[in-house]
Every structure is written in structure tokens, then in C-alpha cells.
């Protein structure tokens, strides 16, 4: 076996490092949404047109309108994102960011940008990823969501118990109105006051509107906010039960709400109130 010169090894190693760096840099300046490749350089123009007023030219959430907006625009330099399919503490996937741009965030100033072409939205996603070096780590792996359990009265009642046990009421309030005892003390990662979600208002959740979206929210947590991940505390069946109960708190004609409203009038007295002193039914 011939001896490999040290200089050649060093050169090869440097080449590998360069290639790895190049790939990382490319991953940071590209996005992949289905069969669409987004480009950060193209996204820069689009960002200037659509996003800079709130998120700022540096992506720090300090655009000229930020002072008037509540909740504040996302600071892309921290690479902390609420709506992810990935575990807490990890970066979202390109699809997560794409869905956020497309869907917008209800009850905030972030509109749905769905009328933009897929290419434009993919370009924006690519450009957003240039604001933080964290993206060189790569995105997390999306959590798996098991099949939904049947939405039954029993499931809803079990979910109510989970709501009590996990102390969701502390922030969201016993009725889900966002008025729990801790609500007034909450701040986000930038120390801005933040309100818990009020289930009684809004036509959908910030991170989606399906039951899968709700499941994903409390299994991944909303990074940058006090909403933690319950992935280590909840079994999938418990999580689905909680989803079914939360649906009864919304003023929407969901199947869960229909089941609940049919049952509740005759059985309200059987329920123990939710809150600091009681729980369960």
C-alpha cells in the first residue's frame, strides 16, 4: 500500500470542508417546496416588496411598522418559529415556513400570502433563511402524527381531564378565554407581553385549522412563546383527547362541538369545574 502524502491529505480534507461549507451555504440560500426550488437572491426582491415593512430589512422584526403591531413581527435573526412540524428547539422545515407564509396568522397583522405564486413564496422562504446562521444546522425532522382517534363524548371528557391535569387552564383559563391566572404575566422570548390563545374568538388557530394542526401545536410547542411542548408528557391518545376537548371551546360548528352541546345541557351539574381546586368530571 502506497503512502499518501500528508500534503495531499490536507488538500483533500480542505476540499471536503469547502464542499460541506458550500452545501451548507446552499441549503441556507435555497428552499425546496415540493417540486419548486426557492432562491434567496430572487426572494430578496420579493421580501422588499411584501415583508420589509414589518420584519425589517435586516429581518430583525424591526420594520417601520413594528412599533404599531401587536403581536410583534417575527425576528428572523433568532430563527425561532412558532409553527413547526419539528420538535421544540429545532428549526422548522421549508414546508413549515411555506405554510406559514401561505396561511398567515389569524388575529395578527400577518396576512395570508396565498395569492402569490408558489415560486414567489418559495423564494421568500429561502431568503428568510439567510437571516440566521442557525440554518447551517439544517431543519429538524418532522414529528409523526398518529391516526386520529374517534371524536366521541368519552374522548372529549378525557380531554377535559387532560386540560385540567396539564394545567392548560393556568394560561388559557378554565373556559379557554385566555384569562387564566398566569395570563397577565406571560412574555415571549423578547420579553414582550403575550396573551394566551382565546379559544372563544378567531376562526382558526394561528398554526392551522385542522385537528392535526392542533395536535401538532402542543406536541411541538410554540418556540419563542411560553407555550411548551407536551411531547414528553402526553401519549398520543391523550393528545387526541385534548384536541377533541379543545374543539368544544371554539365557536365553530365542529363535530366535537355538536357532540358536546348535545350532551352538556342535561349533564352540566355532573361536571366538576376546571381550575385550581378541582378537575375531572
Amino acid at each position, binding site marked *: 500500500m502506497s503512502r499518501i502524502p500528508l500534503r495531499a491529505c490536507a488538500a483533500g480534507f480542505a476540499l471536503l470542508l469547502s464542499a460541506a461549507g458550500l452545501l451548507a451555504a446552499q441549503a441556507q440560500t435555497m428552499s425546496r417546496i415540493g417540486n419548486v426550488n426557492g432562491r434567496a437572491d430572487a426572494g430578496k426582491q420579493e421580501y422588499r416588496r411584501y415583508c420589509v415593512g414589518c420584519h425589517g430589512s435586516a429581518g430583525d422584526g424591526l420594520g417601520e411598522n413594528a412599533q404599531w403591531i401587536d403581536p410583534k413581527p417575527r425576528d428572523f435573526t433568532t430563527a425561532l418559529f412558532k409553527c413547526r412540524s419539528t420538535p421544540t428547539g429545532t428549526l422548522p422545515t421549508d414546508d413549515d415556513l411555506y405554510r406559514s407564509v401561505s396561511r398567515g396568522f389569524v388575529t395578527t397583522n400577518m*396576512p395570508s400570502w396565498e*395569492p*402569490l*405564486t408558489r415560486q414567489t413564496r418559495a423564494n421568500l422562504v429561502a431568503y428568510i433563511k439567510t437571516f440566521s446562521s442557525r440554518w447551517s444546522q439544517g431543519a429538524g425532522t418532522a414529528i409523526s402524527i398518529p391516526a386520529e382517534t374517534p371524536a366521541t363524548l368519552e374522548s372529549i371528557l378525557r380531554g377535559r381531564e387532560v386540560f385540567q391535569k396539564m394545567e392548560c387552564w393556568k394560561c388559557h383559563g378554565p373556559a379557554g378565554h385566555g384569562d387564566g391566572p398566569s395570563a397577565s404575566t406571560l412574555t415571549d422570548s423578547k420579553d414582550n407581553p403575550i396573551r394566551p390563545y382565546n379559544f372563544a374568538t378567531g376562526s382558526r388557530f394561528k398554526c392551522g385549522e385542522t385537528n392535526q394542526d392542533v395536535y401538532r401545536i402542543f406536541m411541538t410547542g410554540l418556540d419563542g412563546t411560553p407555550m411548551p411542548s407536551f411531547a414528553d408528557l402526553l401519549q398520543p391518545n391523550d393528545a387526541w383527547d385534548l384536541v377533541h376537548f379543545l374543539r368544544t371551546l371554539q365557536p365553530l360548528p365542529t363535530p366535537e362541538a355538536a357532540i358536546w352541546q348535545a350532551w352538556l345541557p342535561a349533564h352540566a351539574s355532573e361536571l366538576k369545574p376546571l381550575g385550581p381546586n378541582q378537575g375531572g368530571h
Partner: protein
Amino acid sequence: MIDWSVKRRGGCRWVWSSVLVFCGALSVGLVSPAAAIAASGGYANMTAAGRSGNRDHAKWEAYVRAAGGVLHATARFTLAAHKAAGIPAFARKYNLACSACHTGWPELNGFGQRFKDRGYQLGNDRDSPIWVNPSYIPLAIRTTPGWRLERTTHQPVDDGVGGTVEKTITQSGFDISGADILMLGTLYKNITFGFVPTVADGEGVGIEAAFVRFDNLLKSRWANLKIGKFEMDNMLSEKRGMMLSSNGAFYQSYHFVPVGDATTFGLGDNQIGAEWLGHSDNSYTRFSVAVLGGTDGTPGLLEGKSYDGMITASQAFDGGSLGLERIGVFGYTGRRPTVFETSGGAPIPGTGTSNKSFYRIGTVGDLFLGKLEILPFFMHASDRKDLAGGTRDATWNSGILELHYYVSPQLVFTQRSEIIRMSNQSDPATPKTLGNIDALTFGYRLYPIMFSRAGLAMVGELSFTKTIGTVPLSGVGVGIPPASNRTAVRSTSLLLALDFAF
């Protein structure tokens, strides 16, 4: 919806379709030759005639009649190239920059189109006024000061011995447009209003738009009902046009009627009636059906007993890196009375009968090739012979090709070519070319500021028209057709302006 209305000499409404302002170094180069043109004999004669008001009305009308009624477009219509709006009130409400909703204001992009289709709502559960700071008022203004030059050939002027001679008339000077007061917003979630009074010096106040719209009826995006006075759902919106000069501020096709035709209608005019509009969630698919009074937007009851109708439909496609591509079709039809009951010989409004029909049908596109926007338009039109004043139906075709090149969200170059060709004159003895129009416009809009509180555009524009045997539709010049109905009247508009909205 600024009333860049046409003003007729002697009568005398000056249309001012545009406004000019010095825009940096460009103005220096343009103003000097303009001043030289203005100092010509033609300009001196014109201003003298205008000052003395020496064309008494009866004589003027007789002249018009003798010329075959070719003036009728300017005599009967306010050829308003009203410009509507980028509306900073929305930008202030939602904290979005102009560029979010506009390719370059006032033209809407796909996002802005959906915002409008939703009844000026983002759909973020914060659209109702209850969520807005009580000090917020949904009010914006738009006006355009500037400098302009108008030059029109073959204009009949008095020769001093009782006759007339044709000369080239050149006018120039600083000017201001009328002002639009734009009030649009939500009365409540899913209840939208619009109220746009226009103010023009010496012409009082008009109402460009006034409507209420009920959005998402039966919780469906396909059911939105608007009642009042509003712009038709023209895909090629004249109210949101990028051009402002006298000859370029409006689409000739939207206001043209053949010489001698009595049809009172302009596709670009705001109409009074009710409109049913539907759209998909992203507004890629859109349609509208409207029932309209036959008054061409003038408040008041019908002259006869017939309503107009309009249908539009369009579909957009995701063109990938090219952009959003939209194609659409439209059709407008109406009838106008030709016989009236009279009182003392004067027609009694509302008694019109023997309605005769007219129609406009066409197709339009809004296509992107990256930074280049292409707006093709084709229309076929017909007026029944009883309206057209001859022995057979008048028919004509028109086409537009408009280009916008967006160097950046803050700079756009514009160009438009437009032709109108008569295919059938109502009077077979009339030259087939009478009324034909060629129009060409070049311009730019530079937006030095682009944020969510106000908008400013520096505008430069040069527009040419050639009309055969009749006056320019813009109304510039003395407003009288040339002696020969085969003469090509050439009109040039130059505009340097500051177009601002706050």
C-alpha cells in the same frame, strides 16, 4: 378617481387629464422645447380666442352640427380619465406597504386583488372597525400637481375675416388635477363601504363612487353583493391605470363611440347599479354579474325602461418564476330609448321607448414574464343603427397592448399602444376611416418612498394620438373637428407630475 375631466373651450370644461411636475433633470430637457413650442403663433392665437370667449354657443353648436356631429363624444360626456387609487388608508390600517397590494400603485397585484375581492378585508379576524384604534379614519386623498404640454394639429381657429383656418394649437403650463377623497373600508365585518367624492377647481364636487357591499353572503366567497355607484369589474382597470397624461390617462376603447352615434355609455365610466361578484379563496378565479341603470353613471332615474348588464370572468394561473398569469373575458350590453313623450316639445325623462341595443364584448390578459407585465386587450363593439344615426349598425374593433417593466418595486416604465378601427359606419356614405384612432404612450413612474403611510410617484409621460376626422377623445385642443372628415388630427401630451396620496 381624480376627475381629470375634459374642458371644452367656450363652454368651457377644460379637461385636464394630467398634471406635470418637474422631475429632476428630466424636466430641464423637456421644458425648454415645450416653452419654444408654446411661444409659437398658434399658441398665441389660441389663447386670445380662449380669453375673449368669442365663440358663442349657438355658432359653435351650428359648426358642430355642420361637421356631422363628430364632436359628440366630448360634447356629451365628461371624458373622465378618473384615476382611482392606491389607498393609503388601508396601508395605515393594516401596516402594509403600498407594494404589498400594488405592482406599482395604483395598479393592483394578485394580493391586492384578493384584498379588494374580500371587501377590503385581510381575513385575519381583525377586519371589523372594532379592532381599529378609534382615532383611525378610513380616509385618503390623492392629487397630482405638475406641468404639462398639449399640442393638437388641425384645429379650426378664426381667421379674422369671418372664416376659420386650421392651425396647430400648443398649450402648456403648470397645473393641478382635481382631488380624490378616498373613503373606503369596512362598516363591520363583511360589510364594506366606499365613498369617493371628487373635487375640481371650478367644477364643484362630484361623486365618483358611493356603494355598500355585503361580503361572503351565506358564508360563501362566491356571493358578494355591491349596490351603488362603482367601477365596473374591468380587468384592465382605467381607475387604476399607471398613466396620467391627457391622451394616456384613459383607454380610448372604453369611451369611443362612432361619429354621429348617440349612445351614452363608457365602459370606463363608473356605473350605478348592483353587482354580484364571486371569487375563489386566492382570487385566481373571479366572476361578476352586474345590473346597471342606463345613465352611464349619472345619478338619476332611467331615461327609458331598460337596464344595462355586464358579465366578466377571469382565471389566473400560477406561472412559476414568470409570475401570475390571468386571462379574462367581458361582455356589456344595454339599450337606449329612441322615442320620448314630450312636454312643450321637450323629452320627458323616464318616458323613453323604442329601445335600441348596443354591446361590447372582449377579452383581456394580464401576463407576466418576470419583471415585464403584458396587458393585451381586444374588444368588438356594435351599436344599432337607430343609435348610430345611420342606415345600418355601426361596428368597430379595438385593441390595446400595454407593457409595464418593473425595474424594482419603486420604478416602472410603461408603454401602451392602442388602435380603434371602424368596420362598419352607420352611414355608408361616411368614410370608413372616420373616427379611427391610434394612440401611443410612453412613461415612467418613480416611487421615491414606499411605505405604509403615504405614496408619492414622480411621473413622466409622453402620449400621442391620431384621430381621423374628429377631435381627440381627451378633449384637448379647441374641441372642434377638422374641416375634412379624412384629416388626421394628431395630439401630443407631455406630462411631468408628482402624483401623491396620503
